[in-house]
């Protein structure tokens, strides 16, 4: 048949695939921010395990407790002689223990701010302290290279766990067993102690000073952080390294679990909190905080994320109330939304169907009676006399159809969309009409072409096409360079853009060369250097 004219279709390029996963979208919902100014850098933040999930911020010589409901500073515990560390809640949220730089461990009643116990025994600063799962004991780690276990009811030291050769800066209790405890030490080791024998059953090498330790609820894994690396050890497999996560650009300082205990939050000096899936250890999201992180925590009701920053600030990020009310989750989000939208759709369909059925017949004599049937659509089986529909064409298509190549290119350029311009240029090349389209241009018509070149010559998706155009422009107009000032300046800008791109490519080539030297094998893909016009 005599074919219809086929319009030019701009190409669609693939988007970035990882931009919005459900999980990333979920973590991005923590948008509301509340900052707490504190006297010194925040060494520890911890949420109370019971409602309303108060937040204990340890900074300077005090522990500040923020109310979970109002998000305001509730009370300040300041009975420390020196810098306090590691304000940590008991499992019922009533007691709080904190060590200090003078080697004294104090246990407080959170409500009354009263010091219940004051335990001395460490010669160095107590950098980490934590209640046991039953709440009767506290384990402390200190800069005097010792770890001590305290019995709270009697207030006596129960045991000293030996073997550490440097500062002990991290610890983690084990949920599945009251007898196991993990410590992290600056001698690069993560140790797992059995409190019954008081011996280390595992000594796992981290290769960097250990800043944070975490034993996830299953008990099969041990996670340590230090340097730029997070290591995951599989305890059931004799402590072999399961994963090495190096997703932070700077040192990793803290570890935490989220409310569901399926995600691992790691914070570092690169001002990021990365959310890892504990099954796959893939990073599902990364959350930016304005400052170097020293500690991180997530509230058990999923409503808040807290980060203690080195810049003597504590930032709490809150999720919007609606999301909390909906019980959103990274997995459940899409499902709930979809279910809801399906319900509304169904509802609409039903109501519409009812409306249709209940459409009243017009009363004889009324206006509707006389106009009835006017807007009826043909039903199946009716013979419809077709109306020749005018095809709506884009302006550049109309010119292409008339073989007015120059005008078609002008129209494409006025759209200010590079995909359209590229599609038209490619069609012109196929028609062998690019030369015709580019020739005989006045300065006013030439400058848009040069602008387009300048903007897109470094875009890898269009660079090749733009170079073809650029070469042809130079071929056609090299004789008139210097006649018009505007054209010359536009050309110079294109030239600069090309030079920049060439420089960038060369730098990359140098980098590839250096990397090849470092790795020892030639890189698989070579970068093609674009020759400047």
């Amino acid at each position: 048949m005599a074919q219809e004219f086929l319009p030019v279709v701009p190409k669609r390029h693939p988007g970035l695939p990882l931009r919005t996963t459900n999980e990333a979208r979920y973590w991005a919902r923590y948008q509301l921010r509340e900052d707490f100014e504190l006297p010194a850098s925040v060494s520890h933040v911890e949420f109370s395990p019971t409602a309303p999930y108060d937040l204990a911020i340890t900074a300077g010589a005090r522990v500040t407790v923020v109310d979970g409901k109002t998000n305001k500073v509730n009370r300040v515990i300041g009975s420390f002689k020196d810098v306090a560390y590691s304000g940590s809640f008991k499992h019922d949220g009533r007691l709080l223990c904190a060590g200090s730089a003078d080697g004294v461990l104090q246990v407080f009643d959170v409500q009354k701010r009263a010091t219940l116990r004051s335990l001395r025994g460490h010669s160095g600063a107590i950098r980490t302290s934590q209640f046991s799962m039953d709440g009767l004991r506290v384990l402390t780690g200190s800069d005097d290279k010792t770890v001590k276990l305290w019995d709270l009811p009697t207030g006596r030291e129960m045991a000293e766990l030996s073997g550490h050769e440097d500062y002990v800066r991290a610890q983690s209790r084990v949920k599945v067993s009251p007898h196991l405890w993990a410590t992290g030490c600056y001698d690069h080791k993560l140790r797992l102690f059995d409190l019954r024998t008081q011996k280390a059953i595992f000594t796992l090498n981290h290769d960097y000073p250990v800043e944070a330790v975490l034993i996830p609820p299953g008990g099969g894994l041990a996670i340590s952080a230090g340097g730029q690396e997070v290591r995951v050890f599989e305890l059931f497999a004799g402590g072999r390294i399961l994963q090495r996560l190096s997703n932070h650009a700077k040192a990793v300082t803290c570890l935490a679990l989220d409310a569901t205990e399926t995600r691992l939050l790691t914070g570092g000096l690169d001002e990021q909190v990365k959310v890892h899936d504990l099954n796959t250890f893939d990073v599902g999201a990364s959350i930016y905080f304005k400052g170097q992180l020293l500690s991180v925590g997530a509230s058990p009701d999923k409503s808040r994320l807290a980060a203690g920053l080195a810049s003597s600030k504590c930032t709490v990020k809150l999720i919007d109330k609606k999301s909390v009310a909906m019980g959103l989750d990274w997995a459940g989000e899409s499902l709930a939304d979809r279910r809801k939208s399906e319900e509304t759709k169904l509802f609409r369909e039903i109501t519409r169907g009812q409306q249709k059925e209940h459409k009243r017949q017009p009363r004889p004599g009324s206006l509707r009676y006389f106009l009835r049937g006017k807007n009826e659509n043909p039903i199946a089986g009716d013979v419809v006399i077709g109306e020749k529909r005018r095809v709506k064409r884009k302006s550049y298509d109309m010119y292409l159809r008339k073989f007015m190549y120059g005008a078609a290119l002008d129209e494409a350029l006025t759209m200010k969309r590079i995909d359209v311009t590229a599609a038209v240029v490619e069609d012109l090349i196929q028609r062998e009409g690019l030369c015709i389209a580019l020739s005989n241009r006045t300065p006013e018509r030439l400058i848009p072409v040069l602008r387009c070149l300048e903007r897109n010559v470094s875009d890898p998706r269009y660079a090749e096409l733009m170079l073809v155009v650029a070469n042809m422009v130079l071929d056609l107009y090299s004789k008139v360079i210097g006649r018009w000032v505007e054209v010359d300046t536009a050309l110079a800008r294109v030239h600069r853009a090309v030079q920049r791109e060439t420089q960038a490519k060369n730098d990359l080539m140098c980098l590839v060369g250096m990397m090849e030297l470092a790795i020892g094998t030639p890189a698989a893909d070579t970068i093609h250097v674009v020759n400047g016009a």
Partner: protein
Amino acid sequence: MKDQWSTELYGGGSMSGRTASPVWSGNGRYVILPSGRSLKMYGFGQPDEAGNQISSLGRVKTLSEHIEGITAVADLGKFRCISTSTDGTARLWDLSDGSILRTIDVGYPIHAVAIQEGQRNRAYIAVGSELRRIEIMKGRTEASIGLNCNFIAAGPKSDTILGIRRRSVYVFSGNVAFENRSFVKFKHNRRITAVSLHPEDGSLAVGDEIGVITVYHNVVKLCGHVKGRKTLKGENVSQSKMHWHASSVLSLAYTNEGNILLSGGSEAVLVMWELSTGRKRFLPRIGGAILSISPRPSGTSYALTCGDNAVRFVSAASFSVVAQVRGIRPVDAFHQSSWSRSKLAKVCLLPDLKSPGVALVVGLPNVIQAYDMWRDEHLADIVISARNELFAFKDRATPSKGTTCKVQLACLSADGSFLVTLDVLRAKTSEDVEFVTETLRFNSIDPEGKFRVAAKVENPHGGAYTTSLVFHPRLNVVATSSSEGSINFWKLRKESDWYCSRSIGYRGFRCSSLCFSKDGSLLASACGPVLALWTLNEDGITDIDADPRILCHSPTNEYITSVSFTGSTESPLVITSSSRSVHVWNVITGSVWWSARMKVREFAADPLGENFAVIVNLSTSSESTPQCAVAIFEVSKPVPKRVFRFRHDVLAMSFVPVETGDQSALVLLAKDLEFIVLSENDSVRQTRARTESGNTADAEEELDQSEDAEMSDDDDHKKSREEDVDLNVALSASRRALSAFELPSHTLPSLTVTGPKFLMDMMTGSRDGDGDEDEAVPLREDLQQSESDDEKDEISGKNLRRSKQRQPFSEDLLKSFADAFATKQKS
């Protein structure tokens, strides 16, 4: 064995020869289209359901008696027509039953034929450098004039005969003038490309090479009653000029009333000149250059022959295309001169057993054509990239830069649900800059036949050119290879999500061809001179850091051009062809089964059986017309089953499944768009016969016979061949003997086992004894078994059975292997 692969069936052919225009017959109820070497008759009369008469176009019969292409047809009235061909005959047909009433053998190729109005027992034909008038029923030449005309036309409703040659029109007014050899040489100032004579007032419309139509008024009267030869210059005649066409006017026709002049050219626009008012109407985008226009006697429609090998019917009332008959498309539908030179379409196989005989023609611009080879019918154009096909103006002043936009490669998945294509836009934007964009498209076809682009990848191999494209036999995995040696595996992730899951390569060698084994466990790739075999995992791709098994290094370092496994799942053989040889390799032992040296141009393997075909170049560079032969081999024997020689150049070939679904027939596509079907049995021909009520043609086998005759001629060559063969046997024996030691050391049996066997093998080689062969095989069986235990027990078992059945190698070779093409090459 004697009659295998002998059945020949012709089809297709060019419908758009320069002079072979369609002819209306039976008062416009039928139209006769010359198509290749046959005439196809289509009927218009039967109204369809909607009562629309003109659009119901059905083939009534195919008349095929000519043995070469038909050059022209003319209607004689009373349901008879005459056709002329380059085979030197003119044939008179009775259209009612399709029988030949008379065959006139002239002895020289006939270019054109014309019938004078009112004198339908005589025909004017252009033979060689003569114009002849023949009496049809007697077959006698009545008169002849030594005029080298390439085209003749007869004026409607007048007795004028026109012969056209370059810038002149020779006008004969009446047959008396022809007998007296008196004519007027009417001179135009440019080369004439089309003429038409007005039915009433005797004016002559002349279209020329620069696109101007000149109407010379009153020419018939001016040229009438001339005695002797006279020359009349166009400038001296009253004339009117019409110019719209940008390139040469290829066709001109007055309508029956004479008030409208139709013209067409390479622009694929039908122009309708209203002579009384001077207005023009256009019908653009016809699909190809308009080569001829023939108005229907009733005046209601026009038949246009188009450059894309189609005949289209334009309704005069609505001025739109209402029906069309399509043949196999040429690559360039606009420039007729380039057809003969351009490398034409490849035929790609459609292995869909539900539709046997359907082949996809790959290599066309923007589309893939589905053509039913058995029924000789166009089925559909599958649009791959929706682009306007345009006539690019080419003449001597502005030579074309050579823009091509072609679908180059295609493959179908085994279940027919995916069609993967690669189309290439190649444009020279300046002297040394070529802009090339390759697009790999994954098209999904749902059960209703709906076609959708699922995914599109631009430049799938970066800067390198894609050389081959194959689909995994079971899984949704596609492998592509590139000129820079990379092999990419593309996998289907979700419904329409294709991604490149792995990229491999062998030492950066250019990879020219890929083939999956039938069970999908191996991928054979021709990497330069090396055949690399990759083991695939259950996902259909190679493992990370997988190393290929290097099967062979070509002995003379020739680059392998194509590789293929055999069609049956049992035999572990792989066939490779380079430009100068064919090798059949055993995958398990890694040794050459047999090889032969020949100038291979094209290679195709049967997907269902154990045959493969090779097109062999026979012509030397000095010869102007290319000559080739097609040899069909069975994979187990180095002796070709059949050798055919063709006068025309064969462009492409492919094995297409026959209706029973368990066998294939070989389809060859010749340069004149004609295809030839060779098959083992008669089923193809029966299919054709069933679809048509008309007669089927007997195949002619003279080509084959002549080939045989030539074979027996050269005895000298045969002798030298035999010596060669002896050497071959010795070499193969030593190779076989050494093969025992090729195993890795830990699987090698002790010397007490291998030593005697080695000696035995060497001895077997020196004498070509039959008995020893049987002893040697079981020994080797042990070795092979141990080697292939962990790989393919089943295959190796089959292979061994086969190797026992195998006849002695030397006997095979000696037996009439002195085929003509090999000896020719030697000389």
